[in-house]
């Protein structure tokens, strides 16, 4: 069980669980969390591929770094949309 | 040779305090007491581990950095736990006191 095969399988499992949650859950925030966790699964799969017993290949690292930053901006945009959806549906309770 | 024994001892202490903090977290009845156990034990555990690693580093800059890191974590986690303790609603906080008196 070398290091990278452990994280290959973890990445695959994370993607799978995220996909199940995305399909099952009805609450939008839960679904957004599921998408984030699927993203982390894919990144883990990517970097496990780059790990060759110490002589790590740095191109996937750069790509995943870019991916993390874009993922957080996509999540922020999705959260803003989510706010608009809920505001369109309901009156605002006096806070 | 002494260094190895000392390092092993310090790692042992560090692990003991971390486990004590976690078990304290598990068994204490009230949020405030859990917070108390967790913060104190983890800080001391971190001190032991940082010291153990600092002793064995060749260049002393790294060990100085570790000590600064420990000071930072000490201050931040104590401030955070006080902030949390302030926020826990009163009924829970003085349940412990009522039990005693």
């Amino acid at each position, binding site marked *: 069980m070398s290091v990278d095969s452990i994280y290959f399988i973890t990445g695959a499992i994370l993607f799978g669980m995220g996909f199940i949650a995305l399909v099952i859950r009805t609450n939008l925030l839960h679904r957004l969390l599921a998408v984030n966790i699927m993203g982390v699964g894919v990144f883990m799969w990517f970097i496990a591929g780059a790990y060759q017993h110490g002589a790590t290949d740095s191109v996937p690292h750069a790509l995943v770094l870019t991916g993390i930053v874009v993922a957080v901006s996509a999540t922020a945009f999705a959260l803003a949309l989510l706010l608009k959806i809920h505001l369109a549906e309901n009156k605002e309770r006096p*806070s | 040779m002494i260094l190895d024994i000392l*390092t*092993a001892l310090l*790692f042992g202490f*560090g*692990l003991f305090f*971390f*486990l004590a*903090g*976690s*078990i304290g*977290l*598990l068994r204490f009845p009230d*949020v405030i007491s*859990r*917070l108390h156990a*967790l*913060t104190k034990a*983890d*800080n001391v*555990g*971190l001190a032991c*581990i*940082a010291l*153990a*690693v*600092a002793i*064995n*580093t*060749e*260049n002393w800059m*790294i*060990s100085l*950095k*570790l000590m600064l*890191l420990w000071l*930072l*974590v000490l201050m*931040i*986690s104590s*401030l*955070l*736990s006080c*902030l*949390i303790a302030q*926020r*826990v*609603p009163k*009924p*829970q906080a003085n349940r412990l006191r009522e039990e005693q008196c």
Partner: protein
Amino acid sequence: MHTLLIIAACGLILAFAIGLVRVVRGPTKGDRLLSLQLTGTTGIALLIVLSNFGENNALINTAFVLALLAPITTVAYLSVIKTLSATDGRGESDDT
């Protein structure tokens, strides 16, 4: 890696797992908050141990980043608790 470091790393992960049990079972919101404290400190200790006696400087930088960013989520969570118990008045039961 020095065997002592491996034992220390496994011990820390064990401590983390034990702490997690409380967080999962924790009735009140305060217990959820403890998980942030727990992950922060144990994560920093693990990073120091994994840095292989200071040989890998990047890990100690990561530990600094972790130490500086732990308060953000805790304060964000506290601002959530504050509005909940104050205005909605549903009390401290774990309803969220």
